């Protein structure tokens, strides 16, 4: 942990060297997710509800997913850029060091510019939370926090899968973006609006709905069932196959030689 903090400091320091660029990137990140917000805003003012979810509830859902994705992207970014670590031989250096490999890959990159998304998520929370008629008892607050943490876990798992497949292909597989970027993009609405089939896909195969949809129903009071509230915990299990794939890939690793 101490070592990670040290890495964190180094990344902070190095990113602060290019201040103008850093702030432009932060602003860019903000605007990027702001256009998603505009979409929701204009669609909801035109149609008022979608699948019986009003504007405020959709915003809450959007903010949760955005926060989870931003956190995952900030800290697990090393896996996202894994193909370049493999390609330039940096991974060989990682292998010879006497530290945990996953830890080292995590530490290769910490994207602080994602703070642009955090700020926006915070603003939307501040707007939506008082307006969506939820009585914030302890269990609801717990659900909200659990949703965010579980979201970070699922997105991280997806990044790890993405990296593991690089062991076999060296290049990153573009179509996995469907689940990472797509999960963020389409997760701004509760997954049920896409219909039964999509909801099942995101429940059983890629457990995005486990942290986004089911606990969300509990959060907004559509259900009292405690099972729905605890669904994010099941999503944690998603990490097991992810790590298995990672170890499987690691065993098959051959250096690119450069």
């Amino acid at each position: 942990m101490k070592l990670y903090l040290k890495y964190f400091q180094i990344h902070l320091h190095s990113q602060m060297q290019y201040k103008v660029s850093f702030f432009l990137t932060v602003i860019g990140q903000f605007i990027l997710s702001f256009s998603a917000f505009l979409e929701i805003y204009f669609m909801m003012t035109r149609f008022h509800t979608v699948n019986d979810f009003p504007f405020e509830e959709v915003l809450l859902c959007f903010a949760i997913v955005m926060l989870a994705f931003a956190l995952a992207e900030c800290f697990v970014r090393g896996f996202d850029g894994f193909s370049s670590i493999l390609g330039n031989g940096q991974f060989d250096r990682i292998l010879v060091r006497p530290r945990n490999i996953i830890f080292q890959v995590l530490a290769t990159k910490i994207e602080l510019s994602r703070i642009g998304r955090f700020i926006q998520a915070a603003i939307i929370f501040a707007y939506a939370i008082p307006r969506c008629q939820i009585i914030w008892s302890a269990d609801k607050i717990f659900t909200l926090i659990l949703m965010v943490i579980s979201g970070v876990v699922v997105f991280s798992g997806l990044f790890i899968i993405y990296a593991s497949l690089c062991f076999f292909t060296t290049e990153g597989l573009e179509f996995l973006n469907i689940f990472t970027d797509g999960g963020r993009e389409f997760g701004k609405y509760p997954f049920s609006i896409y219909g039964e089939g999509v909801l099942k896909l995101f429940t059983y195969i890629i457990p995005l709905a486990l942290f986004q949809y089911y606990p969300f129903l509990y959060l907004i009071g559509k259900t009292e069932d405690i099972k729905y509230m605890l669904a994010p915990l099941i999503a944690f299990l998603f990490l097991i196959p992810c790590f298995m794939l990672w170890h499987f890939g690691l065993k098959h690793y051959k250096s690119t030689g450069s």
Partner: protein
Amino acid sequence: MKKYLSFFRIRFNLLLQYRGAAYAGMVTQFFWGIMTLLMFHAFYEADPNAFPMTFRQLSAYIWIQQSTIALLMVWFLENDIFEEITSGGVAYSLVRPLDLYTMWFTKNAATRLAKATLRFLPILLIASLLPDPYRMSLPASGLSFICFIGAMLLALIIVVAYCMLIYIATFHTMNPMGIRLVATSMTEFFSGAIIPLAFLPTYLRTLLEWSPFGSMVNFPLQVYNGNIQGMALLQGLLLQLFWAVVLVWIGKWWMQQSLKKVIVQGG
């Protein structure tokens, strides 16, 4: 002219080599299209009367957009050009007896065209086999199809000319990341790539339709649907032409100014 055409051919052949990437891209685009349509369908069910076009027209809009995504999305920028600028490699390009603006312009247009040519047919074919409201439909009429092709070409010129401005800005900032994000992120929304401009309130819609952004994506796709016809169509095409000329002119002028000041640090 011949030199630039050969640039075009080289880029084209180069990209045709990466077929694997094309398949992966197609799967992504297809999935994206379906998810987008399902999302719009949920809104359609909430209030069909608030829908500004028929669902079939929307399907055609989304499928054309997804299948030609490489053609009209501003964020498809050439990393080599950024690298050339920041690493100083641009000096080599400058000594060549070619106009730098035209060369980069051709490079960009060629990459976009090659990527789109590889991908658009399979996506559209599969999309036309889908069940009814989600299906890709034929153009509204022969005339609107011809105008659609013309509008797409003009849109491509506008998009590339806009991208050129981003490259040239890099001469001044040196680190392209920030300016890239800022310039590309809002464009997507303004041009109707996230939701068609018809879904926006009237004041914003009119404003964006007159801006260069509306000419990039929204206009050509609405022409295909037959939502724009007659005088409005002619007017739209002229507006596209106007923006194409203006953006190219600004780009050329700005590049000339920037190149006067460019300092290549040895190495």
